[in-house]
């Protein structure tokens, strides 16, 4: 298969030393195997994230995403923009929709973009990495490179919110999307049945309303355990961080004994494709995925 090229939008949390830097590392290993070419959008900026609404307002947020889109169009013409972060993808895709459906917003955004010496003519497609894997490759193609099948490992595919709603992956239902399960299965792993697959992790409220967020995270982890999962796998940096990092706090508060690893699909794929633990950035997990590390070590 010919190498596939994309304009890459890594997002702030993927940067070196940032909270989902391990996501980026594993994505790069995964792409190497699948021969995916990711060219970073030059000088990309923050998407504004959902929480940006409070201070940002509508147009400034559109300008932020507009700038990324303009840069992609200018420097990487004809390439789809691919994001790995759920929030980056959603924010940028929402911007695309609004700009395409409102002349006023487009006009105003253009005026703002001029201040940064940019403008938009054709807005590129905005896609999430999971979409790319499923639509441009397909599960069978993703099975081919597997050298270390995940046989015997049980995963709770935690889809969460923003890769699922409001856009979601084509053909999936909001309530029970199956793409992570299928992904895991195509790597030889077992996807457990559990009912908190799309429950919100609390998102940014993990910072401002910890109790509420913790309560939700507790439901998620609990049902992953009930489902018999060895680890949780997710496509979203904030989901990963929230569900992984607060298990300790939740144990304190609720007297639970949670200690379940939370990984990115890209880490799991990298391991299945034969990458080392380091290449799969397994060392980037606060709760170590010992089984995966063992498999990677083989």
């Amino acid at each position, binding site marked *: 298969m010919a190498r596939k090229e994309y304009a890459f939008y890594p997002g702030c949390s993927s940067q070196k030393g940032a909270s989902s830097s391990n996501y980026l590392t594993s994505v790069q290993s995964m792409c190497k195997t699948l021969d995916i070419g990711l060219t970073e959008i030059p000088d990309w900026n923050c998407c504004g994230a959902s929480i940006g609404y409070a201070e940002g307002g509508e147009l400034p947020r559109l300008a932020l995403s507009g700038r990324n889109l303009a840069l992609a169009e200018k420097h990487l013409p004809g390439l789809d923009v691919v994001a790995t972060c759920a929030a980056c993808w959603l924010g940028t895709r929402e911007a695309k929709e609004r700009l395409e459906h409102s002349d006023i917003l487009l006009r105003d955004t253009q005026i703002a973009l001029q201040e940064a010496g940019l403008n938009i003519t054709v807005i590129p497609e905005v896609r999430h990495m999971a979409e790319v894997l499923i639509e441009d490759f397909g599960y069978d193609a993703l099975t081919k490179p597997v050298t270390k099948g995940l046989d015997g490992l049980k995963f709770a595919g935690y889809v969460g919110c923003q890769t699922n709603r409001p856009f979601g992956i084509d053909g999936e239902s*909001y309530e029970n999307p199956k793409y992570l399960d299928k992904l895991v299965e195509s790597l030889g792993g077992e996807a457990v049945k559990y*009912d908190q697959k799309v429950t919100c992790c609390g998102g940014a409220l993990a910072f401002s309303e910890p109790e509420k967020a913790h309560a939700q995270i507790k439901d998620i982890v609990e049902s992953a355990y009930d489902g018999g999962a060895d680890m949780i796998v997710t496509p979203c940096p904030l989901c990963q961080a929230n569900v992984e990092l607060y298990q300790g706090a939740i144990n304190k508060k609720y007297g639970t004994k949670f200690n379940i690893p939370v990984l990115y699909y890209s880490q799991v794929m990298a391991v299945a494709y034969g990458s080392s633990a380091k290449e799969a950035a397994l060392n980037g997990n606060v709760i170590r995925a010992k089984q995966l590390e063992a498999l990677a070590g083989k």
Partner: protein
Amino acid sequence: MTSIVATNQTILVVGGGIAGMTAALEAAETGKQVVLVEKNPWLGGRTAQLYRYFPKMCHPTCGLEINLRRLKANPRIQVLTMAEVTEITGTAGDYSVNVTLSPRYVNSKCTACGDCSKAVSTEIADAFNYNLGKVKAAYLPHDMAYPQRYVLDPSIIGTADAEAAKAACKVDAIDLDQQTETLNLRAGAIVWATGWQPYAAEKITPYRYGEFKNVITNVEFERLADPHGPTRGKILRPSDGKEAKNVAFIQCAGSRDENHLRHCSRFCCMASLKQTHYVQEAFGDEGKSTIYYIDIRAIDRFEDFYQKVKANPNVSFVKSKVARISEDKNGDPRLWGVNTEGYKRYSEPHDLVVLAVGMEPAVKGMAIPAALSEGIAADSSGFLAMNGNTGVFGAGCATNALDVNRAVQSATAAALRAIQVVNQVARAEN
């Protein structure tokens, strides 16, 4: 080869549900020649699959018996079952229609004695009971099926079962060589009464129909309550056969929803109010019903029916569109939402959930023959709307979301519109 006598003064009625039967009978009892086409192997349509009617709580099969007697007594109606209209050409007063007949593999010699059924071992899903049960692959669709003739399911043709059925028939009624055939016939006017289908509940993903066994639809609940149904009238929930004494009814399951059906289906509120009676009838004061609704649409004379149900201490009402359903470990569906009358949160388990699914016109998405679409256009919900000068007339639930009573009125009106056309033809020819 089936033979049909039809002229440009014949009225073709498409659909043998209560609307189609009514249009056909009213026209025939006024002296007109009628050809009635039905795609099922039996007449009666969805009303035949109901246990009781609101608001009288009487039985649809009672009216069906009368209509069948009217039909048997009337030589002017020719009935084609397992038949579908595949093409219409021509104009008002002179249509040419192609009707495709699927093989029944049983001819008119059949006495409905049931020997073939005994001989066959294969079982298939029981379509009449919305697939809640199974039937033999040689079956009489239901006790009041007309024509009163057995049907062989295509799946056994060419198997030993089919031969066994043939061998068991003492009156040589089984004809395994029957083929699909296409008839061409003339008609002066056409009544389009293809009815409705329950909205596909699995599309309402938050309710997990198809995933949670104890989430069923209102039409399925009718079969559970009916003595002719798969449980012989006992209200048992699918997952474990436990008596469903605590039943939730979710209104507007699909209706009034721009993600699903943009219209209000009109009958569902009354249907659920009626079905609370089934729960009461089965379990007395142990039977509890809860209706989750947006607006209770017990329109005109039906209001007092609503008031009576409301007065029943075993029935409660929650003004809320249920947000989602989860499943408890014991299989109980749990409803999540907010009672909007004063903001009260709930997370309620029930034995069984009945989705009051709405009405989708059967014509929706159906390839409407060209000549028909000239005369009739579909509205944004897919219902047929009259459109100028034509010899084709919609009737019943093909034209709007109607209850039985209104569907019959609509069909009676459609019969007159068809008669106006053939009378013009007659006047022109004399």
